[in-house]
Every structure is written in structure tokens, then in C-alpha cells.
């Protein structure tokens, strides 16, 4: 994938817009005073934030703090007890499962362990939505090859998930999330449990999607290195890999949030994150 961003052929996995004016457009996701409780204390308590078009939001926090729950609330996989969640302007908290399906098709989601269907080949996993929509086989094969080439795994076309490594499964999961050209991508700990080299490969794919196709995203992670790399690097389409931004520069569309015991305790830029006085954030960073 070395096409010029913005050309009609270059945007198979995103909105295709190359110029982002976040202030001028409606947010893609809006959380307003959202709370959810299972058994015991609230998992999320009075959470409010938004994701603007073209924005990449990184959700930090230790394990078990409710990061994955927050992600699943966005596309209605879970329902909040209180508050409203707007996805593309629709309040998913009040919609039925039937009404949610068209919205979910516009949303790409990468699950923590990939969540590939064991009984299907990589081709059928990646093409799952297209198969349900009865897209012709030739078209499916072409788009699956394109998506797998994007994650540099075209050779696994006929493989079953069981024969893939953990990192390869995540990359196939990314290909599956991107094939339907989502308008927002939700990444649930895409590098969790992976070695540093594979993690960097995954982060590079996330960056490629952000910088080349400008798809807004929300990425959950507890790995600071991955989070900071997304701010300090950009994807260089001519080199085909990520490159360090000049010293002192960070990606303006990548911002951070942090959860502690179900509450959103930080929401801001990388600069604000590293200079915050919040004790919990400081401890987490150190």
C-alpha cells in the first residue's frame, strides 16, 4: 500500500478524507455521563468524552479498570446503566440490537485476542461481513488480498487461525476490521501479550491507518511505549514504514485519556499527560 493518500484508490479502509478540521465536524463518538455496573462497585462512573473526525484517542489505565468495557459500550455490545452514548449521532444506549447492526457495520473493532472464528480460514474471517452481504466471490477475494497485503499477511490467505502466531492473529483481526472501510476503528489492547517487535509492527499498522487514511480511532492499551510511539512518530508512505517526528513535535490528532477505578482522571495531549500533577497518572507513567 504505497498509494498517494487521498486518491480514490488509496482509501480502501477509511473515510478517505485527508484534511481534518475536527472543530468544524460533528464528533464521531460522544460519551455523556456514562456509568455501568455489573456486580459490585461501578465499572465506569460518570464518563464523558468525545472522539472527533480524524482523531486518535488512546485510553490508558491498568488492567481491570474498565477500558475494554468502555470500548464495547461504543458499538452497543454492552448497555450503560446511565448516560448517553452517541455513535455517528445516534444514541446507541436507547437502540435495539436490530437497529445497532447497521451502525456496527460502519465501525471496525479489533478484539484483545483477535477473536477470529476458529472454524473459518483467514480468507473467510477477513471477508466475514462481505460474505454475509453476498458480495461476489471474485470481489471478496480481491478485497481480502488487498486487506491482507495492508497487514503484510497475504501468504496466510488459506490458513486457519490455529496455525497463526499471536501477532499474526492480531494483524488478521485488523484486516477484518478494515475490510468494510469503517468510519471509526476500536482497538482493544492490540499489542497486549505480544513481544516488542510484533507490537511495533501492530502499532505501525495503527499509525498507517491513522496517517494514510485518517480514520478516527480509539485505542485501549496499558503499554506506554506503544501510546507514546503513536504521538512521536508518523507513517511515511514513501518509505513504507513509520518515521520519528522532529524533536519537540507530536501528532496533534493523537490525544490521551486515563481511567482509574471507573473514573476518567485525565483527558488531554501528550504534553499535558507528561506534565500533569495527578498522582495516579504520575505513578502510572513512572
Amino acid at each position, binding site marked *: 500500500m504505497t498509494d498517494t493518500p487521498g486518491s480514490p484508490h488509496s482509501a480502501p479502509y477509511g473515510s478517505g478524507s485527508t484534511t481534518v478540521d475536527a472543530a468544524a465536524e460533528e464528533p464521531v463518538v460522544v460519551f455523556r455521563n456514562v456509568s455501568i455496573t455489573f456486580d459490585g462497585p461501578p465499572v465506569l462512573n460518570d464518563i464523558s468524552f468525545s472522539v472527533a473526525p480524524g482523531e486518535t484517542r488512546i485510553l490508558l489505565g491498568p488492567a481491570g479498570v474498565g477500558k475494554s468495557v468502555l470500548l464495547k459500550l461504543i458499538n452497543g455490545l454492552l448497555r450503560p446503566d446511565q448516560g448517553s452514548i452517541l455513535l455517528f449521532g445516534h444514541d446507541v444506549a436507547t437502540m435495539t*440490537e436490530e437497529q445497532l447492526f447497521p451502525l456496527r457495520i460502519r465501525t471496525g473493532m479489533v*478484539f484483545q485476542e483477535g477473536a*477470529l472464528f476458529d472454524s473459518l480460514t483467514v480468507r473467510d474471517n477477513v471477508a466475514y*461481513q462481505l460474505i*454475509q452481504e453476498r458480495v461476489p466471490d471474485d470481489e471478496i477475494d480481491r478485497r481480502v488480498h488487498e486487506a491482507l497485503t495492508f497487514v503484510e499477511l497475504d501468504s496466510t490467505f488459506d490458513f486457519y487461525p490455529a496455525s497463526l502466531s499471536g501477532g499474526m492473529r492480531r494483524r488478521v483481526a485488523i484486516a477484518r476490521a478494515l475490510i468494510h472501510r469503517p468510519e471509526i476503528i476500536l482497538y482493544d489492547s492490540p499489542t497486549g501479550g505480544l513481544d516488542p517487535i510484533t507490537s511495533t509492527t501492530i502499532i505501525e499498522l495503527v499509525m498507517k491507518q491513522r496517517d494514510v487514511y485518517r480514520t478516527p480511532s480509539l485505542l485501549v492499551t496499558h503499554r506506554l511505549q506503544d501510546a507514546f510511539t503513536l504521538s512521536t512518530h508518523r507513517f511515511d508512505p514513501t518509505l513504507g514504514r513509520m518515521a520519528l517526528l522532529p524533536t519537540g513535535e507530536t501528532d496533534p490528532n493523537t490525544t490521551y485519556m486515563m481511567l482509574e477505578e471507573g473514573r476518567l482522571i485525565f483527558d488531554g495531549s501528550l504534553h499535558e499527560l507528561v506534565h500533569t500533577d495527578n498522582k495516579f497518572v504520575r505513578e502510572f507513567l513512572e
Partner: protein
Amino acid sequence: MAIGIIERTAKDIVLTAQEYSLFAQRAVLNVFRKPRYWTDFLMQCNIIGVGSSAIVLLSGFFTGGVLALQSQATLSQFGATAVTGRFVSTTMLRELGPVLTGIMVAGRNASSMASELGSMVVTEQIDAMRALGVDPMRKLVTPRIYACILMLFFLTILADAFGIFGGAFVTIFMNHQNGTQYFSQAWEHLRYPDIIQGLVKPLVSGYIIASVGCFYGMRTTGGTEGVGRSTIDAVVFSSVIIIFADFLLTQILLTLFPPI
């Protein structure tokens, strides 16, 4: 303290029964709305029907054989061994064929449905399916329920037939009685109510097996340990409910078609 435990348990039972009712009702009604997954239905017919045929044939054959052996011991005291065929065919068709087939298929398929769907739940495959815009109830549960109902109907007919053959085998080769007499007795004394009774029961059992298996699979929590728990619950509850439903159906059908 004790009252609190009883209250919680009672509430849990009522809540589970309510959730199961809504789940089973929704799964059945899905067939009236698009999309319908015919390929999945046919695949499940193959897994449930063809996959279970061997155990159903063998259990039917040996049950018929045991019935012939036991009846020989009892009927010989009254000089009535000639009615062995009638005894075996009536018992197989009305009761043992449907119930045994139901329990055998429950052991094989309710467990496989619960463990397969349970594994999909704990590995987030069900969530992934929903996130991809596909309703798991329609894609996974509804085809299994209809396939199980249809296949159990035919498997019961096979079990009945092989039960009668098993009885014939024992009657002819072990009890050294007349085979023609066995089959004529088996055939002549069969009435339509016997057949109706034997073929209504597997429709209900098929529904119970698939709905209970899928229900416990889809509500799995607690990782791989939870999958094991769901599998056990699915087999235990589907088997018990099949026998309970058999009791109710027998009572109803005997009222509708009283014995002569």
C-alpha cells in the same frame, strides 16, 4: 440467613426460567424474519443427524434386544412368548425409541452446542460476530434448533426400526422363536395413536436439546472452567427436561388417544 439463601436461589431459578423462555421463543420466531441461514441449517442437520446416527442405531438395536430378552423371561411364565414382537414394537415406538434417542442426542449434541458456543463466548467470537453486524441468535441458535427438531424426528424412526430388528435378532437367534410370528405380531398390533405418540415426542425433545444446549452455551461466563460448567448443565438439564416433557406428553396423548 437460611431464608436469604432460599430466596436468592428461588429468584435465580425464576430468572433463569424467564431468560430461557425469552431465548427459546426468540430463537424460534427468528425463522419468520430475514436473514435466514440455510447453509448453517444444512450443516447442523449433517452434524446432528448424520453424526448421531451411529449411536442412535446401536442404542436402538441393543434396547430392542434387551426388551426381547427380558420379555422372554417374563412372558414364558404365562406361555405368551408369541407376543414378544408386539411387546417390543409397541414399547419402542411409544416410549423407548423417542426417549432414548432424545437422551443419546442430548448427550452428544446439547454438550457440543454448549461447549462450542461457550468457547465462542469466552474467546469473544460472539462479540466479534455482533460487532461485524451479524446476529448470533439467527446465525448460530435458530439453525441448530430447527435442525435438531427435524433430525431427531428421523433419528427416532431409525431407532424404532433398529429396536424392532434388535428384538427380532434376539427372538430368532437366541430365543429360537419364529421370526415371521415376531414380525407379524409387531406389525398387526400397531395402531396410529402409537405412531403419533412416538413421533410427536421427538419434535419436543429436539427443541429442548438445542434450545437448552444453546442457552447454556450463550450464557457462559468464567473462561474454560465456565465452558465445562455450561456443558454439564446443558446435558443434565436437557436430559431431565426431556424425561419430564415425556411424562407430560404421554399423559396428554393418552387422554387424546385412550388405549383400547
